[in-house]
């Protein structure tokens, strides 16, 4: 594999943003996705939990969260695929003084809808949502969620008390889901002013009440823009699907070797197809020493292991909640990175896999982008007609229901 920090991806290239506990790496290939170049480590020695690609409004911008073990965490961006990075003097994300809180980690960076090309979101630890409406220059705490009366009762999971998933509704600018470990799923329908629990049917096996109103340790949720009322969820024990925008959830854990795992990713072109990486509860590695991505093609009624090209003997691998990703090409590419530093990819929807990289530091996140892709060609993008931004002004007046 060729390493070069001077070469950069061309139009049509697939780019993988790989965050590790010791820096970030960028991999890119043409649409064949058989030969990969890479650059990195970027921010060597830093923990990179979150990455995102912003291709809106003509940008080709990579965002990373980068945590120096002593000197804190900040957001950085690059408009030239890592040849140079911004160097903000101040921390871009800070808890306001009245909260008394201190930022520990940035777990998720999410770009907003295409109709709001300057909007970005971050999910952080301690669990909170931040929003920028000026392309990441200034950030503000989403007060409606921060002031939720449940917040004092949220409790940290093994990774900390984090807001790790942000899902803006693809067509309705007032709607969004977020997931918190361990708080569960919350949704807003009024642009962030108020937030309702969205956990009905999701289990919490570690609590006296196995189906509490909130407190679930949700590991990841995803949804398909062509069917936005349907969501898929990987829980700390349990797989669930909602067909009514998170109003209620039902189990779809039939036929998997373990219902424990971290990631949940939907196929870019098929709202019935989803990918997971089941883990044994005891070791939190692929069960039976096998590396297996599981796929459903019927919205969770059944699951099949995808193993061609993956180790099936004495391979104890772990994939974290943001370690599994898909690209938007046809056929879709599927990728995952492990805590042992292996990066695998499939250029055919998971039918066969190849090792892209080995020997990386523990991989925390994998995100994908197709360079120069027109927004209207992106399957995860739906153009909006009613464009009301997720208004910052609206966020200062908490109103809980």
């Amino acid at each position, binding site marked *: 594999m060729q390493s070069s920090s001077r070469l950069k991806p061309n139009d049509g290239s697939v780019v993988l943003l790989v965050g590790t*506990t010791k820096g970030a790496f960028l991999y890119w290939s043409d649409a064949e996705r058989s030969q990969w170049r890479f650059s990195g480590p970027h921010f060597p020695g830093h*923990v990179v939990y979150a990455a995102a690609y912003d291709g809106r409004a003509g940008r080709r911008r990579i965002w990373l969260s980068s945590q*120096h*073990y*002593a*000197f*804190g965490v*900040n957001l950085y961006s690059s408009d030239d695929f890592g040849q140079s990075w911004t*160097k*903000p*003097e*101040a*921390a871009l994300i*800070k*808890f306001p*003084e009245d909260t*008394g*809180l*201190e*930022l520990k980690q940035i777990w998720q960076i999410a770009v907003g809808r295409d109709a709001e090309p300057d909007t970005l979101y971050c999910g952080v630890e301690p669990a909170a949502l931040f929003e920028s409406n000026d392309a990441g220059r200034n950030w503000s705490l989403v007060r409606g969620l921060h002031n939720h009366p449940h917040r004092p009762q949220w409790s940290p999971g093994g990774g900390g008390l984090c807001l790790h998933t942000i899902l803006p509704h693809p067509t309705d600018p007032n709607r969004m889901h977020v997931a918190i470990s361990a708080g569960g799923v919350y949704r807003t329908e009024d642009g962030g002013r108020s937030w309702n629990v969205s956990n009905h049917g999701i289990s919490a096996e570690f609590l006296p009440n196995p189906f509490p109103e909130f407190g679930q340790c949700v590991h990841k949720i995803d949804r398909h823009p062509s069917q936005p009322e349907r969501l898929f969820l990987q829980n700390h024990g349990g797989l669930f699907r909602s067909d009514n925008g998170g109003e209620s959830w039902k189990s779809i854990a039939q036929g998997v070797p373990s219902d424990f795992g971290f990631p949940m990713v939907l196929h870019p072109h098929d709202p019935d197809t989803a990918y997971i990486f089941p883990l044994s509860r005891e070791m939190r590695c692929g069960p039976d020493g096998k590396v297996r991505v599981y796929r459903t093609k019927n919205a969770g009624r059944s699951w099949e292991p995808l193993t061609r090209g993956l180790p099936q003997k004495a391979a104890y691998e772990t994939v974290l909640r943001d370690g599994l990703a898909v690209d938007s090409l046809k056929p879709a590419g599927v990728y995952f990175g492990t805590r042992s530093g292996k990066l695998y990819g499939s250029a055919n929807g998971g039918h066969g896999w190849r090792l892209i990289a080995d020997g990386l530091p523990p991989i925390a996140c994998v995100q994908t982008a197709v360079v120069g892709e027109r927004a209207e060609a992106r399957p995860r993008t739906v153009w909006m007609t009613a464009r009301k931004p997720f208004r910052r002004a609206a966020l200062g007046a908490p109103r809980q229901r």
Partner: protein
Amino acid sequence: MPIRVLLPSYLRSFAGGRREVALSPAARTVAEALEELWRLHPGLRDRVLTERGAVRPYVNIFVGQANIREAGGLAAPVSEGCEILIVPNVAGGCPGQRG
């Protein structure tokens, strides 16, 4: 004699590449000295302090040989000609830190 602040390599890029910054000898506490440092080099503040103004847990600040955590924290006294050393603490063997 100015108060001298010595910076670790990671922080020097936020101080124009300087290894050492000279401050006014008028400061009476570490906090006062650091306020001048932040004015001269704003990029240093959020790396050394949290948003609540506390010294980050894995950052040590010494005045001479004394770690300010045992000498009154940011209220620790400084004097003309003293040396303030900012260094990252050692961290190892812990997943998610430096392990």
